């Protein structure tokens, strides 16, 4: 011990150097990474799947009757076309971390249920923000990013996946197509349509009844299918040793309430905290209009409720409560997975020109303490989008006005603000964000959007100049996720 004493200063020196190196390395790491790269979008990542679907999803001979088989073929091919178009429209994303997380759940369930699932289905991650997953049949299931951000536990996601796998196992999509083909070519259906033509009066009502009768029947079937899928999902989870918590059904009841959840602070506070001017009048409805009145046309809503394809969530909870296998705490979804999913949704909302929704989610992220440079960068993008759209006489469409009845008062306030704030203030906001220090933390491609935005905002700019700027960006950053935005102008 004593002999080693003379080396202590040297050790300290080494420690200091290591510490400095760590800090330096930490600084390097502080350069934020983008949530994903452009090549993981489905039009590139799922090219092989797209091509193989056309071949592998060949229409089975389900009916002897030619007409019914023809109709069945139409549905079958329509399904293929739907998936192929969705792949080409970049609806899906093959981001490694997200895919690995969801695939882990699918693999666990499939491995434990080989008798029911001999072939593991194709998994797609849909970029949609809606809390949903779906099975289209043909051993293909899709999980929305909205579900990943909404879920509180791995088990919650597993339940939804097990439910979709059950639909796939029970071939509900195929059955549905067959039933529809049968019905639409049935004598009964044709007779009811002919009766519409033969009738002198109330033709519209009669036609509506024929279609509604069919829709209600389909809805009834669907509800039955959902019950079946719930029951089988519980079995799949049990075998897969994944806890089943019926309370998840109750949570699903609130899944469409993202924009009904109020912000923690008044809208004004978020902007003034960023050093931006804010006038109260922006967030107050200035114009007269029926949107400010309290209409209550109930009939439509009652009808919509009766057309729901799923049973009531409370009923599902009550029915499955005895099968609960929750014995301890549930496994949380990794924070990095949820953050990534959330960022992808935010970018998607921006790129799809849903700017109020995008900004509202950004403010909600701030409420949750997520305010790294990338979120501020997205706020800049939102105000760029608004300013650009205002120049193009398109602000209304990017604000996407929702009725006050459908959203939280703070969402309505934000929407009113974005609708009413003067264009000079929009520009001021955009320029303010553009001059902040957070840009230093962003990767080169995010910074590379700045000159592109500047070109797009030039009032005298020609479409060719815009196209050239977009191409320049794509050439400079071919793998950047932001190429998706540049593509709108480079085509």
């Amino acid at each position, binding site marked *: 011990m004593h002999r080693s004493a003379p080396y202590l200063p040297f050790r300290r020196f080494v420690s200091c150097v290591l510490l400095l190196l760590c800090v330096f390395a930490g600084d390097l790491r502080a350069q934020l990474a983008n949530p994903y790269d452009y090549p993981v979008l489905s039009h590139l990542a799922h090219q092989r799947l797209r091509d193989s679907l056309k071949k592998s999803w060949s229409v089975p001979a389900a009916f002897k009757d030619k007409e019914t088989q023809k*109709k069945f073929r139409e549905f079958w091919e*329509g*399904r293929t076309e*739907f998936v192929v178009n969705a792949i080409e429209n970049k609806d899906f994303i093959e981001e490694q971390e997200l895919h690995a997380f969801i695939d882990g759940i699918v693999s666990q369930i499939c491995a434990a249920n080989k008798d029911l699932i001999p072939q593991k289905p194709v998994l797609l991650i849909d970029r949609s923000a809606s809390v*949903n*997953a*779906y*099975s*289209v049949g043909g051993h293909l299931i899709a999980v929305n990013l909205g*579900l990943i951000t909404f879920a509180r536990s791995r088990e919650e996601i597993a339940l*939804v996946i097990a*439910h*979709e796998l059950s*639909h796939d196992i029970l071939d*509900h*999509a195929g059955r*549905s197509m067959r039933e529809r083909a049968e019905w*639409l070519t049935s004598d009964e259906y044709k007779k009811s*349509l002919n009766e*519409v*033509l033969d009738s*002198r*009066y*109330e*033709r*519209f*009502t009669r036609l509506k009844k024929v279609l509604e009768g069919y829709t209600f029947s389909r809805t009834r079937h*669907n509800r039955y*299918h*959902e019950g079946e*899928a719930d029951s089988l999902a519980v079995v799949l989870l049990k075998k897969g040793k994944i806890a089943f918590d019926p309370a998840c059904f109750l949570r*699903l009841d609130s*899944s*469409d309430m993202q924009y009904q959840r109020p912000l923690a602070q008044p809208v004004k506070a978020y902007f003034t905290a960023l050093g931006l001017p804010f006038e109260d*009048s922006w967030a107050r409805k*200035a*114009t*007269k*209009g*029926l*949107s400010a*009145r309290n*209409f*209550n*046309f*109930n*009939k*439509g809503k009652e009808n919509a409720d009766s057309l729901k*394809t*799923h049973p009531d969530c409370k009923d599902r909870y009550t029915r499955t409560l005895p099968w609960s296998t929750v014995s301890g705490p549930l496994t949380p979804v990794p924070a990095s997975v949820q953050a990534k999913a959330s960022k992808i949704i935010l970018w998607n909302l921006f790129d799809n020109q849903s700017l109020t929704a995008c900004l509202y989610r950004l403010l909600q992220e701030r409420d949750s303490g997520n305010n790294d440079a990338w979120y501020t960068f997205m706020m800049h993008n939102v105000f760029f989008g608004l300013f650009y759209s*205002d120049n193009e*006489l*398109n*602000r*209304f*469409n990017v604000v996407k*006005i*929702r*009725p006050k009845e459908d959203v939280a008062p703070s969402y309505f306030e934000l929407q009113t603000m974005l*609708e009413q704030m003067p264009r000079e203030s929009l520009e001021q906001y955009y320029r303010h964000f553009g001059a902040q220090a957070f840009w230093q933390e962003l990767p080169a491609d995010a910074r590379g959007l700045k000159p592109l935005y500047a070109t797009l905002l030039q009032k005298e700019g020609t479409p060719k100049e815009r196209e050239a700027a977009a191409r320049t960006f794509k050439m400079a950053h071919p793998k950047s996720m932001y190429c998706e935005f540049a593509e709108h102008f480079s085509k």
Partner: protein
Amino acid sequence: MKRTLPVFVCLLLCTIVSRAQSKVFREVSSEISSQMKLITQDEALIGYLMFTQLEKVNADSFNYQVSIMDENLNDIGKLHFKDKNLELRSVSFEQDVLCLGYVKSDLADLKNTSMKKIRQAMDEGGNAVFTQLINLKGEIIHTASIRVDLKLKEELAYVKNARPSAVAGRLKHDLVVKNIPGKGFMAFYGDEEKNRLFAFDISGKELWSKNIPDAQAFAMLTTASDVYVLSKRKMEMVEGGYEVRGFAVSDGAAHDKYELKDRNGSQLKVLGFEIDPTTGKPIITGSIIDPVRGNSFYTVTALSKGPYDGVFTVALNGPRRADIKETFSYWSDGSKAPEISASGLLGDNHAYPRFSSTIRDFKGNTYFVGNSYIRKAKVGSIVASILLSPTVIFPIFIAAGGYNKGKAVDAVLLRQDSAGRLRFENAIEGQSSRFYAAKMDLSYYGFKSFYTVSNPATQSNFLIVDDFGKTIIYNVTTRRVVRTVPAREGSVSTAIFPAKQGHIMVVENNRRERYTKLSIEAL
């Protein structure tokens, strides 16, 4: 999980079902007709209403659907009802009640009825003005019918096959329904027998009614305390003959009748009849017709001779004649209008204006807006006539074409302040027409159309100039063009219309990609 069978199934179903049963859908949809109407309150647009005749339910009745949208075109709700053949004419809103005014007819089937029978049915009556009150729950809370004597639509012979359910007749003066702030509604119509003005509250109870003497045309304006009916009768000065009748909303007591003439007895041509945003009282604005040259205004040559002597603003401040404030400004009054010649030539752009619209701003100024025309000598024709004068015949031919030519140039604005002082406000640069013979009718030159948008929140007024190939949006308050929108760029054509207060509706149609995009934009 909430929607396991995904959206594509529904889409697919609609597509395939509609393709397979296209004949049924085609036949059923051919019987459906829709009318879009604006919902207004206090002269402001507050929403939209789609009235759809869905189907015939028996020999003389139809099923209807009313869809109500707010000022952002978001759906508020729908209601259905059954009634005889209806044609929606006017919609208004007051105290959470919508009032719909229709023309109703007992005759439902024009397609299978001969013209003789249609005429007979028209003579037998069975037509009515029908009002319907709807509350915010989508309930019809009151209906009322008043029998009227309709005039057979002239175009019926041509459209009877295309529109089997159109109402066969029309009112002589169309039905107008407007709200009375805080009280209810006021309706006006004129049939072959009489012109009727009647007030009713939001429960539908009639408060009073008046018969108005017949005239060529009518317009109505309501305030919280009074209702005014502007009428135009036929007279020697074709653009004159206006008079205003006012009534107290409370009991229908008549105000002093006001005949629109200047102090010299010259007739006045009305361009605007609206509520003054500064006082909340009605104002009438327009041009003063020259008693000698006033009937000659169809050509540039006629305009250059001065068919109008000036402009006016009349404020209807109360029931008595003495309450009415008249402001007349004449071209010939040099102290008031140094830039305007006695014949109306605007000094700044050397053009003759023909005003067609007015704007009342939030500071008590009236702006007169119109097309302007320049007139020049046809030098070539004059020289040719001189050179060819020995031939006699050629100068006669040349003279027949005239020695002057005219051209439509910029839109112009003239401002009249509250004291009657005139100022040439601005010329809004736009597309000029080609030169035509100055004797040719002004319709050959084409017209710029004008719409106005006001924003009470920012107290600003905008003028929308629908020009040839573009729409220009001009801020009257700052005297600047704020936007110029090309009417067509590639396969995209864009049209602009006024929308809710302070906003415009941009309708973009892409012919190549086959979509129409609507956008309601703030100004």
